């Protein structure tokens, strides 16, 4: 049930919204829906996770396609009496109701605010009451994912102040707590803390706890809801911080999850992709190109091998979209840090097919190159947000592009700083030694300028990793002795040690054989 990220935003006027509401009867409950909620309610009560998952993933989708293609599902009030007016079930139903609305239709401001209220009520229940449910990971992931998505959508909507009606502005002023950035972040943080998930993951490494082994499910009669929401909230926090442009903190929030191993984050394809996409993007912005390349490579290979299994799933479109975006990001990373040996053959051939020509042009670092960097970045980047509330005083403007423009500007600024490095690389590949004077001549710059270029090359190709260590990601390297440049090409290392060991043993064998021969 991943939301479609590309649809139009809220209707421009209130009239459209009203017309939408009048277009169907919210209190009419078809039999199939009655049957759906009754069964789902029973399965949840009986903690039958498999059945819940089937209904959530498949039945809901089927009914939506058949009966609710462009109208909302029946209102929660209409179905409540079929499920004993169970408060928690109603909150869960409403959560699905709003998710469907966002995916198929355009939410009005009032609906956005109501959805926020519903999340608050639902989250309060999970955080402060003992919840005796087991829900499928897919659903729990979708909750967090959708929560962050609706926050992002609200910020985009709110930032388009120009055509807002008076009613909308009045509502925005009145309900200023709805989708407030503090609220969103604090709920995610609360899940992480209350679930104790960080300690659980730590203790799991020592063998005291079980979490990943059971995919987060609780087989001792308890509930998985708080724990798994806490777990997925770490990914949620990574995502929100990326939307704000705070890559360092985003990666920090993800730290307790080891992305070099399988985990609960890989149990749901949407969560797996979201995690790696944001991890890779944050690494790219922090100039940790090798890390980004490695992770994108792994993820793209995984998608290549497994996407056929998701063809029928509602997430398929999203999977494909993110796949394309990650190829674009990989193209960017490899243009800034040419390390093709890090990329697996299948991924490499796909990459060359999609972006081979563009990558060649990007490495020329002329105006055209910058246009391509701009294009790929804009296509693949997250939908950055301005988290602060608008000032209702000023002349009303649209500022929804501000955040994106800032990130793009700073990214291109970094690209520009690396502009001269490509030229140096070409020369270094051709010579084993060359004097500073000669190279300056060939590059048509004076010696002091050449020195700055070489310093810049060294600085930009030696990144600082998360532990503060220097890691070289230079494919071609050099050192200078007085005024002589010595080029060092990183060749695959011949393992002489192993070779000698083998030969020693072999020689010993030959000598032993010879000793046994008697000369007659």
């Amino acid at each position, binding site marked *: 049930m991943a939301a479609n990220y590309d649809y139009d935003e809220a209707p421009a006027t209130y009239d459209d919204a009203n017309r939408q509401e009048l277009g169907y009867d919210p209190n009419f409950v078809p039999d199939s829906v009655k049957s759906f909620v009754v069964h789902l309610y029973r399965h949840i009560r009986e903690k039958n996770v498999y059945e819940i998952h089937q209904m959530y993933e498949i039945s809901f989708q089927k009914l939506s396609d058949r009966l609710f293609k462009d109208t909302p599902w029946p209102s929660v009030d209409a179905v409540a009496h079929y499920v004993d007016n169970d408060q928690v079930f109603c909150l869960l139903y409403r959560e699905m109701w709003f998710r469907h609305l966002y995916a198929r239709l355009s939410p009005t401001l009032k609906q956005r605010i109501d959805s926020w209220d519903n999340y608050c009520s639902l989250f309060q229940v999970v955080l402060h009451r003992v919840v005796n449910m087991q829900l499928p990971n897919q659903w729990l992931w979708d909750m967090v994912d959708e929560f962050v998505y609706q926050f992002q959508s609200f910020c985009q909507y709110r930032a388009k102040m120009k055509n807002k009606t008076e009613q909308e502005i009045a509502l925005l002023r009145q309900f200023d707590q709805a989708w407030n950035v503090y609220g969103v972040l604090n709920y995610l943080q609360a899940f992480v803390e209350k679930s104790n998930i960080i300690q659980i993951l730590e203790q799991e490494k020592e063998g005291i706890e079980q979490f990943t082994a059971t995919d987060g499910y609780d087989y001792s009669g308890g509930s998985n809801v708080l724990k798994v929401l806490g777990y997925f909230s770490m990914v949620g926090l990574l995502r929100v911080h990326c939307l704000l442009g705070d890559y360092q903190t985003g990666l920090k929030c993800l730290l307790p999850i080891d992305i070099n191993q399988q985990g609960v984050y890989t149990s749901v394809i949407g969560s797996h992709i979201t995690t790696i996409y944001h991890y890779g993007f944050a690494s790219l912005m922090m100039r940790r190109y090798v890390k980004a390349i490695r992770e994108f490579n792994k993820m793209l290979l995984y998608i290549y091998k497994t996407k056929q299994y998701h063809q029928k799933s509602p997430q398929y479109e999203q999977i494909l979209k993110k796949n394309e975006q990650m190829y674009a990001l990989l193209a960017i990373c490899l243009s800034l840090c040419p390390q093709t040996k890090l990329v697996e053959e299948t991924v490499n051939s796909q990459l060359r097919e999609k972006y081979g020509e563009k990558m060649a042009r990007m490495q020329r670092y002329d105006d055209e190159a910058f246009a391509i960097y701009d294009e790929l970045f804009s296509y693949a980047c997250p939908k950055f947000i301005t988290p602060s509330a608008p000032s209702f005083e000023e002349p009303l403007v649209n500022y929804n592009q501000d955040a994106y423009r800032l990130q793009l500007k700073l990214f291109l600024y970094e690209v520009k700083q690396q502009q001269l490095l490509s030229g140096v690389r070409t020369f270094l590949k051709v010579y084993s030694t060359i004097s500073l004077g000669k190279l300056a001549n060939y590059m048509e710059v004076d010696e002091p300028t050449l020195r700055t270029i070489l310093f810049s090359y060294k600085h930009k190709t030696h990144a600082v990793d998360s532990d503060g260590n220097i890691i070289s990601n230079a494919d071609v390297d050099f050192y200078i002795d007085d005024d002589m440049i010595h080029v060092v090409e990183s060749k695959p290392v011949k393992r*002489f040690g192993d070779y000698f060991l083998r030969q020693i043993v072999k020689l010993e064998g030959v000598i032993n054989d010879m000793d046994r021969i008697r000369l007659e």
Partner: protein
Amino acid sequence: MVRERETPKQQQQVSYTVEQLVAVNPYNPDILPDLENYVNEQVSSQTYSLDANLCLLRLYQFEPERMSTQIVARILVKALMAMPAPDFSLCLFLIPERVQMEEQLKTLIVLSHYLETGRFRQFWDEAAKNRHIVEAVPGFEQAIQTYAIHVLSLTYQKIPRPVLAEAINIEGLSLDKFLEHQAANSGWILEKGHGRGQLIVLPRNEFNHPELKKIAADSVPLEHITRIFTILG
């Protein structure tokens, strides 16, 4: 990169509390004044905390009316001092474009640009024209010199004296003293270059001595050697 020095016990207690706040309750507008004080404390006691400063920049993002350009400038200077870590750009990502246009911050961005592109001479020239910004933060000069030496150490095995002098902005007798100190404590070796003055031999590392890197890659585990112990014996 956190640079830590000895601080008086009282100050240590305050910073411990702020770090806790950032770890446990970072999305809280009430801690904004504490974080601002902490920036000033980092400046005066020559300590540094990227996480706390990012937390403050985020709060400024959430409530732009409460932003102080002065504090932002101080954060950026501290970030500059953390080079080669990319802290400066990490901070810029959180500062709105129109704020970055302000005079103080524009200057700092130019300074950062010079350092990122190895233009040390231009950096020191520009820094000299803006003493009020850089002198406001103790330890600035040394921090940049440390960064410059870091870049030189990645690049040079043997560096001519004038190149070193320009990079760290020290000349004449002061430079002689500096070199003596480095020779005594950091393993620098001073040589006579052929006719052209001094050559300074920088300490060996895997970046200016690639053979050091190769050795690390071709290591053989001990268990494999045990196979041939009988032969060697």
